[in-house]
Structure formats: structure tokens, C-alpha cells
């Protein structure tokens, strides 16, 4: 890695202050994305601000808006939470499918969402469940949060403090893993709410997005059968060593069916 200053913050405010005082700062939460990238010398921050110990960003609790998951909740915590397993089991399953057990013991939802890797799992759940992202400054609706691969609505230095997931009537997650990276080649999160269904897709390339045609069809009939013949255009999707854009496009339908069959 290139050299950097390592600093710990003991509060969110202190983290913001230090961030503003640094030339090229990065927040460090679980480190599962940032540290391998630094190890490969793909990034060169001047300062690493470790916010991984901030207790105010931890905790999973229920309130009248749904389930609030602290930004520093590890994937392990979300997958094993009795509350989430009871209320949004598909979210617990998604968290339990990220990476591998060791990665899940460190990686955090805040880190995942701040990074917004186009092949990450969480964006599909957050967009699919129309969650609210809480930051140290404001609340951002899921529909306004994701701005394309690795791009979000967060301002410089803004810290995610938690995510509130409304509790759906039903939800599911279908995931097709890249055999090398084990990231989702395609992941489809479906959720049924009283005001309509949501279908969110990750892994295709351009960042997480919703499939309105599927949502409309599902509002009539919530079942795997419904989406069987709905195809999505792969025009903007990635073609790489592992999958063509066309394959990814077709897998959206297959994974949606899988999600709906759960």
C-alpha cells in the first residue's frame, strides 16, 4: 500500500471534522473493499479515517417505520438477526450470501452502500425495499440514492449512519454468482408492499435499477409465473470474461423467478 495517516474517530462529528481537515481522506469501516484496493495500489488516500468503532452506528432495532439497521452492522449481524429473520427474511438471506463467512464478519452495510459497487448485493435490497438511508446530515430515499456504478447521492464526507427498511408483505432475492469473484453476476430483489411491488436488479453493470415492467405485472399477480416471459434489454449491460450482456439480461428474468419462488 502507499503510505497514509491512520486516524480513529470517536464520534461521527469528529469523523466529519477530520475528513474536512484532510487532503485525500477515506472512511474505513469494515475494510473488505477498501483494504484490498489499497493493497493493489489502486487508490492513494492521504488519510484513512477509521469509523469502525463508532457505537452510535451499530445496532438493529424495530421502529414504526420498519427496521433500522446501523451503518456499522456487519453482514453477519444482519443475516443472524432474529428480528430481520422474522420480519424480512429475504434481507437476512441476502446478507448471508455476501462474500464468504470471513468477509461477512467484517463487511458493513454502510460501507457497501457508500461504495455502491455495481456488483454488490445490498443495493438490490435497499432499492427493492424502498429503504431510507440516514446520514449524519439528512435522510435519502433509496430511489434518490443510487446514481450509477460507484456513484451515490452522498456529498463529500457525508457519513451513512443507518438504513431503515420498511417491512414488506413478502420479499425474495435471487442471486447468480460469478464463479470467480462470487459476486452476483445478477441479483434480483423483489418486495411486495401494499402500495405495489418493487423489483431491483444488481450486477448488470450500470448500477442497481428497477424493472418497471415486472413491477407492473406483479402488481396484478404476485408470482414467479408472472415474470417468466418478461425480458429486459441488455443494451447497457456489461460483457466481460464471465458473461455477455445478453446472458445477464436473461438471467434477470430467471433470478426474478427464483426470488419469487422463495
Amino acid at each position, binding site marked *: *500500500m*502507499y*503510505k497514509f495517516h491512520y486516524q480513529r474517530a470517536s464520534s461521527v462529528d469528529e469523523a466529519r471534522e477530520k475528513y474536512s481537515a484532510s487532503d485525500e481522506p477515506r472512511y474505513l469501516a469494515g475494510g473488505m473493499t477498501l483494504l484490498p484496493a489499497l493493497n*493493489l*495500489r489502486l487508490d492513494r488516500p492521504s488519510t484513512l479515517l477509521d469509523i469502525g468503532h463508532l457505537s452510535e452506528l451499530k445496532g438493529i432495532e424495530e421502529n414504526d417505520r420498519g427496521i433500522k439497521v446501523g451503518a456499522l452492522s456487519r453482514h453477519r449481524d444482519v443475516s443472524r438477526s432474529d428480528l430481520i429473520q422474522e420480519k424480512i427474511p429475504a434481507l437476512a438471506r441476502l446478507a448471508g450470501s455476501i462474500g464468504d463467512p470471513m468477509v461477512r464478519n467484517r463487511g458493513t452495510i454502510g460501507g457497501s452502500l457508500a461504495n455502491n459497487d455495481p456488483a454488490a448485493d445490498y443495493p438490490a435490497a435497499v432499492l427493492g425495499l424502498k429503504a431510507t438511508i440516514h446520514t449524519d446530515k439528512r435522510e435519502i430515499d433509496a430511489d434518490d440514492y443510487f446514481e450509477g456504478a460507484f456513484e451515490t447521492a452522498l456529498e463529500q464526507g457525508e457519513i451513512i449512519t443507518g438504513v431503515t427498511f420498511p417491512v414488506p408483505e413478502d420479499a425474495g432475492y435471487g442471486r*447468480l454468482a*460469478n*464463479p*470467480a*469473484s*462470487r459476486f452476483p453476476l445478477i441479483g434480483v430483489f423483489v418486495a411486495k408492499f401494499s402500495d405495489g411491488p418493487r423489483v431491483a436488479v444488481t450486477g448488470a453493470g450500470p448500477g442497481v435499477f428497477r424493472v418497471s415492467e415486472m413491477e407492473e405485472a406483479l402488481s396484478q399477480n404476485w408470482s414467479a409465473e408472472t415474470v417468466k416471459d418478461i425480458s429486459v434489454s441488455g443494451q447497457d449491460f456489461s460483457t466481460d*470474461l*464471465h*458473461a*455477455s450482456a*445478453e*446472458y445477464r439480461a*436473461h*438471467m434477470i428474468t*430467471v433470478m426474478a423467478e427464483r426470488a419469487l419462488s422463495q
Partner: protein
Amino acid sequence: MRFGIGQPVRRKEDPRFLTGRGRYVDDINLSGQTRAVFLYSQYAHAIIKSIDTSEAERAPGVVAVFTGQHYKADGMGPIEPEMMPEDMGGPKGFRTANMPLAVDRVRYVGQRIAVVIAETEALARDALDLIEVDYEELPHVTSAVEAVKEGAPLIHEEAPQNKSFTLKMGNGDSIDDVINSAHHVTRMTIHNNRLTALTMEPRGCIGEYNDGTGRYTLYTSTQNVHGMKHVLSHQILKIPERNIRVVAHDVGGGFGMKGELYPEEAIATWAAAKVGRPVKWISTRAEAFLSDDQGRDLTVEAALALDQDGRILGLKWDGLHNVGAYINGAGCVPILFSLKLAPTVYDIPVVAVTNAAVFTNTAPTIPYRGAGRPEAVYIMERLMDTAAREMNIDRVELRLRNFIRSDQMPYETKTGWVYDTGNYAETLNKCKVLADWDGYDARKKASESRGFQRGRALIYYVDNTGIFNERMEMRFDTDGNLTILSGVLNHGQGHETSFAQMASEWLGVPFENIRLAQADTDEVSLGRGTYASRSTMVGGSALRAAADQVIERGKSLAAHFMETDADKIEFEEGNFKVKDTNKGMSITEVAQKSSLKMGVPGHLGAGLEGTGAFWSPMPSFPNGCHICEVEVNLSTGEVAIDKYTVVDDIGNVINPLLATAQIHGGVVQGVGQALFENIAYDDNSGQLVSGTLMDYAVPRADCFSDINVDFNPNASTTNPLGVKGVGEGGAVAATPCTMNALLDALSSVGVDDLPLPATATRVWEAIQRVSA
């Protein structure tokens, strides 16, 4: 005998590995050591016009920066092929000279151009950024098929059409007539794709120079210390062998990839003398993908001619083997072995096979688990299943009809191998029973009820194992305990255990008191290393000869101690007895007494020891049946192995626990090639696109089910132990077995061919193409 031959003895070496006390090369640190980091070529093919290292040299902590110019100015030499066909009476080819640091031209993106030596690795990498290289890019070609076409860029001007040499084997003057007149001809184009060994321990080394004695020491992770020493002495440093010591402690996997000298080892050794301090280099995983020599990469046009009963009349194939930018080490071996083994287990009257070594702007290819035999068996077993389908003959029946029969053994193939023993039909039938072949329909229905398409395949493989001679020594110390000095080189195979089992059984020495010494050219005077599944066959047979000498000398010593003649001494279960009496001495006592300072006449030696050597002019031929059942998800193309059964004829089995595990490991690598693994170069840029584990899909535990293994031993006649090699057969057999099973599953939807690897995307796309 609990620790004897044939017992599943648990390994002596395990405690240190289980408790984190193994000693791999990165665990070694020498006083004053520096760290080296290499600069790799940006381009697949380019002239190096200049390299400016001046800023790098001034960077903090930098001790030295060297380029090919420095290396060449010191009179150091290139890495050349260990052998070329012309060295064995074959046609003359172009012999490449690969300077460890490129001098004026680079020919692949992994080629090393410069080295920075600094106090720490991080400081070396910081300085690496400061090196300026002035390249003149040249056109490149990465595929062998393209490289031989007219107008393709020449990798070496001396090799027209980018061919170093072409080899021909067989008796095939009449092959075209055979094909033209045959009842049926199956034709296929088959590409056996390129892989990387991906040893869990990456390569690494420490070079050290003692300016008082003028001796170099190279600590490294290798399969062959003596081979390395030889190359360092004769090719690289051009100094007498006695001034070089090569040492390996624990080696974390090899698979053939670590069987030769690499540029980094040459440079670390040379540079240690230049900078006057040890030079340590450890590969990162990304550097390993880029710069480890790679495996396979053969494209063939093949034809199998059969009569109306499905009897094979002739086999023809013409291959282009992508040898990469240079022929390194044993790079010719896969080309040779693929030809020699081409007819595999079938009695084929006319065989005509050719294989050309083709240069491209990619990493050099060298032996990787199987080294040419996986290629040969893949071609043959794909042809057999395809012919069976085309002729509507049962796939198993077609094989049985064409097998070399046990009463034909020893059988000379038309390519010049002589198979010693084997009962292929019997082994096949045993495997079918073990695999519950007849119960398949129920499993197929069960898969279908869960939404999967089930398929299966049965293949039969043969392998050629064992090469070169070998030397083993047995030495007793003054305590009467035994050390085996081994010319082979254990890197996971369990030699500390298997050789101790043998010695324990032959000499009656307690198993736990036997030490294995290996992998140090100062301690072991001669050896060949471990590869080609040779260690038990050749090493074990040499050990047998050493044990015989120990017994012979022991008899003379015992006779002296017991005051009788040597011909009155018998040796049995660790004891030297005087015939027809109760007098006896244990081997331990004889060893102890023989090492006393007084009382032993000089002609009997001082201390008990024995040396043995073994050579077989012909390899041994392990063979076996693999049966694979897969489940395919037709909507995603994903394939999972659901049942895998092996019955193997590896001759006599020394340790079934270790032997079975070799088969497991080989099978998983073979399946890896069939379904997941692929080294890919981008044709347009010449860059390696599969450069990390994010892109190169190595199999994980969740890709498999149990692998059920049993043995059907037919003792080998090539060596006194009756063993055949076991290290590579799994990898040889599993790739065609998996692919044939997958195609069986897809036959119902009309897919009859797939490329390697058959990734989910490719499976799915093939399904789409036939339904369109």
C-alpha cells in the same frame, strides 16, 4: 504391520503444518536481507528502446536497480529449454534464449524488464513507479492458430510461421487411405485451454552470496533443487556447480509449475553477489497470474475412423501447441507426451499424430499436472463419445470393443510406448458397480423433479508416469536411527510418511525414528525432483535398492560382530540372525556398533549406510475408469458435480490414504478445467485479462460432491515395487469425464459440443443457439 506398506498411515509431517510451524520460503528471513520487486512488460510485444532507472535508484531505501543491460554486461546467461527434440534424436527446432531481464525486446506481458532491490518491499514498489521505459510497440499475436497464419507477426525471426519444431508420431503413412475408406469418420476441432497452476504458495526465493567462500545459496520454492543448481551453474552464472547450493524447506504446491528455474531465481542469485546482501523476492498473486509459466493450450484437428461395428481403424490428429513466447524448462514435454499417449487405451492399428510448438506473445507453457497426457486423453475420450453418438452405439460398449485387452499386455502402441499391465475391462466394470451405474434412471428422475437435467459419462484413461533415474541414500546415525536422503522432492505428497513406511517395512526400523532429508543440494548429492508422478515408482525403487545395500552391508557387519561369516547371516524383520542359532542383533544395534571409533575394520566401512539407484527405460502406465454425474440448470447454464466415482489401477498401493487424496486433488483440478478455469489474453491488446482470483475461477468446495475412489491393482512390471504413479491421473481423466457428462445432460436439448471451460454463460449460450 501398522506402519507398513499398504497401510493408511497418518502423516508424520502434519503436526508442523497444523500448528503453523511449516517453513515456506517467505517464512525465512536472512540477516541483512533486501527485498526485490520486478518490473513487468507493459506490452505483449515491443522493442525496448531505453530504460531510465536513475530516479528509481535515488528513491528512499533503494539499494540497486538492474536491467537486462547490467545482467548481460556481467556475462550472465539466458534460460534455455532443458531439452529439445533434437537432443533426443528428433528434428531440429528453434531453441529460445530467455534472458531473465529482457535486453532489447519483450515478447509477453509477464516478461521481466528490471528489478528494484530495496530495504523493504513497500519501498521497492514505491521506486518501481519511477522507472521510465521507452517502448516501441510491435504487433502481437496470442493464439497459436493465428500465429501460424501467413502475415502473423513473428515472435522469433528464426522461427518461420512461429513454429519451433513439429513432431510426428505413429505409423500413419496410410492414415488418409484408412480415413477415406472407413465406414464412419468422426471429426472434431478441439481446443484444450490454457491454465495456471495456482499453487497456494506463490513462487519466491532468497539469493545469498558468501564472498568469503565464493558460494551462492538459493533458498526457493521448487520441485527440483538439483535441476535448478545445474541451470544456475551452466546457463546463468557460468560457475562450477560446487559453488552453488539450492535449498527448499517446505514447498506449498507445485503441479509442475515449479519444476524449473525462473528469471526471479536467476536474478536474486546473481544480484545477491552484486549488492553484497541477501535478496528476497516473493510473488504476489497478481504477479503469479502474470509471470508463472502456464499449462496446456493445444488446438487439434482430429479424425477417428471406425468400421461399421465401431472398431477403430485409425486415429489422426494435427495439433498446434501454444508454447508461449519462449520454451522454458520442460516446455517441450507436453508436446511430446501428448503424441506418445495419443491412442490412449485403445487398440488402434493406424495412428498418425503431429504436434507443433508454436510461439505466441503469451507466457511460456510448461508441464502442468499431466503435461500432455490430459490433452491426449481429452481428445480421445471426446472422439469416443462423439463417435458413439454419431453411430448410435452405446458409449461404454464402444470403449469395451476397442480396449487393449489384458492378454495383449505388454502392448506396444503405434507411438512407441509399451504398456506393461492393465485390465481395462475389469477395472471399468468394477467402477460401474461402485458408481451404481444401473441405478442411474432413478437419480435422473430425482434430478428432474428438482428442476435439473442430469447427465453422466464414463471415460477410461491411461497415463505415463515415471521418468529419469533416481538416487536414494539411507544413513544410520550413531544412535542407530535412520535418515533417508531423497533425490525426489516432496511438496505435499507425504514422502516423510510413505518413504518411512517403506523403510520401516523393509528394514524393521521404527517408523517414528526415520527422518527424511531432501531438497538441499549440499545434503543430497544427486536427485531429479518430484514431477511426472515419479516419486514412488522411481524414488521408491531406488530406495528399495538402497535398502538392499544396507542389508548386504549390515550382514557383513553383523557377521563381524557375531564372529561368523556373512553368508551365515539372515536378515528378517529388522534382525540379523546367525542361521540355525539363536544369535542375533537388531539393525539398530548393528548401526550403533558400526559407528564406534574402534573395533570395526576399515573395509566394512564406518557406520551403516546404503545407496541405491533406479531407472526404467519405460514409464509405468496407471489407468482407470472415471464415472461422473452432473446436474445442469438449463435456465442458467450452471453445472454441478453430483456424483463422482473412480476405480484406479495404480499398481501396488503403498499408502491408500495418500494415494486416494492425490486422486481427489487431480479430479478437482480436472473438473476445474472443464467448468471454470481459463487463462485469457485479450487478442486486441495482448494483455492478460484473467489476472486475479476475481477473474480466474478456481474451484471451491461448494462445486463438488464426494469423490468415491477404489483401486484395482495390476502390479507394474517396470519396477520392483510394482507401483504405477498416481499424482496426475485424476487431472488427466476428470476433464473429459466432466465434459462428456455435461454433453450427455445437454443431448436432450441438442447441444453436442462445448468449449473448455464450459462456464454457465457458454452452456446457456449453446442452448440458446440450438433452440434458435
